[in-house]
């Protein structure tokens, strides 16, 4: 049985996000008022050959620590299933 994992990688609070700010300004130019802040991140989906959700989550968290996220500037959250 395989499991799907979804990793959300987002910039930590306090880290400037120039891309998010550019998106916010562009939204304003399109007439979408009231957007106070935009933070951009990424989503990484993995299909795992693993039947145990807890073990899969631990494995994906290890992947985040070693490669998928740069923990100097990024937070990550792992969803299984």
């Amino acid at each position: 049985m395989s499991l799907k994992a979804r990793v959300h990688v987002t910039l930590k609070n306090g880290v400037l996000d120039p891309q998010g700010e550019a998106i916010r300004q562009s939204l304003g130019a399109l007439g979408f008022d009231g957007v106070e802040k935009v933070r951009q991140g990424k989503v990484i989906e993995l299909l795992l050959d693993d039947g145990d959700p807890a073990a899969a989550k631990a494995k994906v968290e290890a992947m985040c620590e070693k490669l998928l996220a740069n923990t100097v500037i990024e937070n990550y959250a792992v969803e299984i299933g």
Partner: protein
Amino acid sequence: MKTAILVFPGSNCDRDLAVAFERATGERPMMIWHKETELPAGIDVLGVPGGFSFGDYLRCGAIAARSPIMGAVRDFAGRGGHVLGICNGFQVLIEAGLLPGALMRNQGLDYICRDVLLKVETTACPFTHGYQLEEVLRIPIAHHDGNYFADEAVLDQLEGEGRVAFRYTDAQGASVASANPNGSARNIAGILSENRRVLGMMPHPERLCDAAQGGIDGARMFSGMLAQIAA
């Protein structure tokens, strides 16, 4: 003096760096493919070149920093080996944990390719030994992700230990916001490791080593390195 240069898929400044190394040392550097797991014995300086290793996928330098050769690079640096990372090479060294902080998307979001002015902040390092302290150099940059970030404690530590090698400044050497091309914290353009033998920098000294390139401000990085390391 023996030098070597790492080559990743997407490296594109490896040959320029090889020319700069050879011009200074008289010996052609060894080019090391990223799939190797050992560095040749007897190397004095290892160059990590600019380019777009692995297409900048995931994060700039992230994939290269986990490639097979990097274990040997870490050992080499740990034994006190000299490592020079330029542009993507700086990104690789940061992702590999050999230098602190992170290099983020340029604040203005643009890819920037032009000359900038840099102030030499320390000459207590083989790579900056050939310059005068506080000398202002003209060196090109060419990057999209050179916005140096570290938390305040790390920045204070780098400053306190004299590990900021270069700062973006105006012609008078003032690190004003208008001289900062990419939003880097405290105008930082290059930093040193704790033992001062690993230098990472965004600007490209190897691109300004010959009068035919429009300037020679980069050349003394390599001649100074030779003078100090071979001595």
